[in-house]
């Protein structure tokens, strides 16, 4: 059985709930390494959440960022990932 990352999403714009303080990013790449969803990518000298639409809001990137470069908020109410079966 091949693992498929099946997740649903609520309709609506979740907003920019993850942003990077680029002055602080040292491009260590830990955000990309711990992200299971491939959200992060190196762009020039910093990392950015270039595929934020794939994010499931777990917060791994924020927790492992040792440079305090990631601002991790919440999607707007009633938007973003929707899990089934809990």
């Amino acid at each position, binding site marked *: *059985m*091949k*693992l*498929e*990352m*099946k*997740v649903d999403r*609520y309709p609506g714009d979740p907003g920019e709930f993850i942003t990077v303080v680029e002055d602080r990013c040292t491009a260590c790449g830990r955000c990309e*390494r*711990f992200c*299971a*969803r491939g959200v992060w990518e190196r762009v020039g000298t910093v990392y950015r959440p270039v595929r934020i639409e794939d994010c*499931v*809001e*777990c*917060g*791994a990137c*924020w*927790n*492992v*960022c040792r440079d305090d470069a990631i601002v*991790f*908020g*919440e*999607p*707007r*109410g*009633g938007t*973003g*990932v*929707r*899990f*089934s*079966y*809990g």
Partner: protein
Amino acid sequence: MATGTYDLIVVGAGCAGPAAAKTAAELGLKTLLLEKARVPGEKNVSGTCLNSAALIDPDLHYLLDGPVEREIREMRTYHIAADRTTVFHEIPARGILLLSIRRDHFDAWHTEAARAAGAEVRLATTVTDVLEEDGAICGVLTDGGERLSARVVIDAGGVNSLVGRRAGLIPKREGHDMILYVTAAVHLGKERIDERFGDCIEYYLGPGIQHKTWPWIFPKREVVTLGTGGYMDEELIGGAVPSVNTYMQNFLDLPVVRKKLEGGTIVAWGLHLEFDESLEQRVRDGLILTGEAGGFVAPFLGQGMPEAFFTGIYAARAAAAAIAAGDVAREALEGRFEELLGENIFMQAFRHVAATNKKSILSKPDEEIAAMMQNVVMGGGFITNVLHTNWMRGAAEGDLGPVQEAYDFLEFVQPYREIGGDFETLYNERQARRKAR
């Protein structure tokens, strides 16, 4: 800008939030429960098995009215090493061991129970910040721009809760303090689950399928959920493991698992962080952290739902007492909250089990753990490991102290002995009433 004033605002409608809101409303507090999902439970990923050793507490009996997927009575543990696989089949209690649930159904039901008790509920509402006055938390700000005031705020917003972070109580965590795990729900249909799993949950330990944690398969009515992952240290990801999904794929590829899931389809995937230690501080003036936000998860076991129910209820009681006394400062809130926690045998017992297991597990490589657990002949469970670890240490050092500790601990885990016919009768009565409704 809209405003509102409450005695108590509870943020998050997972396990702790509705328990807190229901309790507070019943105690006569003007209570508001806020939840970011459209349906409570739809932002949650968890193990979804409620432990009867907690549910026998009268404070939690009302939860037996909720929607249950399957009653669990037995557990199997597969220890897979290079040369042999050992399977332990345990029946640790005389009755229902766990209740398997779906969080998207159960949390929604629980939230309605809070509403029925008199709490105001607002769904699809994200809290973006806390309100502070003279160093005390006095409310929250929502994404709709509302400033909502309260005498006390209860944070039930989960592992990365913005409330706890903004209040300066939840730090960043990784390494051996945080677990990253992935879940998959496989639809098999009721008949195949009855046949292959029945009323038994399964744990696995094998090469390449976890990083110092315990992959599991929990059966529900129509689907089984699988979970695995590991501690967020430097070995979790890298080399042959580009992502935590690799552990899950290897788990699905185990011959024994492949056979059990034959004919099934993956219908859902989930990802979750789980804090695996204690927070230094859980209370501030006007604020109590509960559930995962407060770090109330039994480390290593990852069990957090009962802790969330209990801490939600206790926080509401502490808040009500403090409001009645006109003093919601940290000392007043924390004193009563800690007192109630200290009286809870279930939480104290599981913290002990968890801490002992975590210590003995994290000091060894996965292969050694598999071999060690294969030698725990008395049943192979986590509780047994605590007994075994203390007993063997005492025997090796010729010291009766650890052996006595093992005996004392056996007394301490009596809640499991209590799960018998009475609990089952209570459960059946409550579920029958539910079905009649």
